[in-house]
């Protein structure tokens, strides 16, 4: 344990040497996202090192909630395997700026971020992107009650009458994610998916750029969110 901790401190370039929680205050909190700000932030993202990301994943105990291979061991936490690196990087910055602070889970992430450098965040992000997602274990899904045909229609065609854009236009036809840090959804834990959608719907979560997600979440019914959660949970 001691050896690993020492190695980590060396890796972190001394960033860990401080026991005081002052590190966060030296960074300016990000302004509210605009498309231009997001583009600039992502363009400035350091090149990630997946091997180093894997070490951080273990040493920062990310694996205890998100799983050793990025597949969450329980339904309570999001899986990260195959998640797009730009999305993960953006989310970690959102936690750093406390732009994401919707529940007690967020508090855990917020507490850790001041101790991570931009390079650490990029390394973790690239590591998760390289992991292989898999469909959620059937035990953790609720297939019986989901209307998968309706979910597929929403995902592929959207709903013109309610001005709902197809999910796939940003998140990809196979839930693989898309440009502008649109997250991958394939293999996501249904509880995490539903929690996220409800947080966007209620306004608890507002770290999306110009309400790009919440505007749709607000239009979806609880049943539709459940349908979509099951639909994406079955993808890999």
């Amino acid at each position: 344990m001691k050896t690993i901790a020492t190695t980590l401190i060396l890796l972190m370039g001394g960033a860990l040497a401080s026991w005081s929680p002052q590190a966060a205050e030296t960074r300016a909190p990000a302004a509210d996202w605009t498309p231009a700000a997001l583009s600039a932030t992502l363009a400035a993202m350091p090149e990630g090192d997946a091997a180093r990301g894997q070490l951080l994943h273990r040493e920062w105990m990310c694996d205890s909630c998100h799983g050793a291979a990025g597949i969450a061991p329980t339904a309570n936490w999001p899986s990260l395997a195959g998640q797009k690196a730009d999305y993960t990087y953006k989310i970690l910055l959102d936690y750093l700026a406390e732009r994401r602070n919707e529940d007690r889970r967020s508090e855990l992430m917020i507490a850790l971020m001041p101790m991570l450098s931009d390079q650490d965040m990029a390394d973790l992000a690239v590591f998760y992107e390289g992991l292989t997602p898999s469909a959620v274990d059937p035990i953790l899904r609720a297939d019986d009650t989901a209307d998968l045909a309706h979910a597929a229609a929403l995902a592929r065609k959207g709903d013109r009458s309610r001005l709902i854009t197809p999910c796939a236009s940003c998140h990809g036809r196979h839930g693989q994610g898309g440009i502008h840090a649109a997250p991958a959804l394939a293999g996501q834990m249904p509880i995490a998916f539903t929690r996220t959608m409800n947080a966007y719907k209620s306004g608890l979560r507002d770290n999306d750029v110009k309400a790009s997600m919440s505007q749709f979440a607000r239009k979806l019914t609880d049943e539709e969110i459940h349908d979509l959660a099951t639909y994406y949970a079955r993808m890999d």
Partner: protein
Amino acid sequence: MKRREFLSLAGALAAGTMLPLGGARGATGAHVVILGGGVGGATAAKYLRLMDPAIRVTIVEKERRYLRPYGSSEVITGHVGLSDLEIDYTPLQSKYGVTFVFDEAVGFDPIAQRLALKGGESLSYDRLIVSPGIQLLYDQIEGHSEALAKARFPAAWIPGSQTQLLRNQLESMPQGGTFAIVAPPNPFRCPPGPYERGALVAEWCQRHNPRAKILILDPRNSFVTDQSMMLGWNRLYGFNIPLEFMADMPDDVQTHANPGLIEWIRQQDGGTLISLDAGSKALETEGGRVSADVINIIPPMRAGAIAEAMGLTDASGFCPIDPMTFESRLQPKVHVIGDACIADQMPKSGYAANNQAKVTARALVDLFAGREPGPPSWQNTCYALAGSEYGLFVAAVYRLQDGRITAHPGVRFQSLDATPAQIRLGAVYQQNWLASFTEDCFA
């Protein structure tokens, strides 16, 4: 109340009116009466109702609102206010159908299985759970008294006006002043508590009174979480770790030329308190006279007064129980849980009281169903803060071994080479634990 006076009231029971819910027994399910709506009593009530809704549960409690003791040192340093400790009993009543009687027990007939209440009513029970917490024995310290604690030298170990007084005293302490904490002798509620309090006060002083001195006077030479706490003190407040605690310490431990904010005066250095000199605001200790601007004496303690009045305590002042069911060894069909009972190696903590309540509820459900209670197992976790962002803990799983509640061997403390992430998360876990634990007990 004296024991004799208390028991003599049992005779008045026959004339007392019976509450309807205290009347019939057996036909519509068993009736469990719980004395005390703290962590132990509330948890027992909730879990009895969850495990078997046919069981009727009545809590007898003096106060309409509960002030949680766990995390209450954070009031002293202003992280939370006294009102943040308040807990409302409504959810236990509305969500779980627990009946509350806001009254006090004044008489007890263990043979007839009945309690007399101050309001004149009486309650009969199939099983009685007593969860009275602790009482503080101010008078056992020469020169000290409850009146002095309330007015000038607060214990602030049971939250209330003394907690607020200590908060005010810290705020108005002169620059460079001395804040003395007197740790109580064993056994006591919240074993890491006096040391966590010292750390939180030191953190507050770092910001508001940097030349202040925090003295922890201790009748012991070691304490639970000692090494991990001292490491935190060293890193945060310039505490010099005594040599015999240096084994396995990480390389970043420093020896400070000037002693820091915290000074721990243990038993071998004369830390044991002899008396209080209220007139000149000083403490006589085995190591000599100590003057201080703020004096926080946590006195010796024993089981809540009601336990003694009911004949549940032994010479130790606490309540001997059969660990299988937590049934009193002194009174039949009465179970004692929480800080008041003698639970062998389990500490006196909120977590332990909550856990004992669940195990006892399970045992009662089995007893009412005519089943032999299964082999019990318990657990405890105490989180403690060395700073508001520096968390540590002690945790254990217990089982019955040769008739005693015995800790399962294994890793129990925050590792001395814990990474900054683990330490930071320890503090977040502590805060999240406070919230989810309160929910588990009361909501």
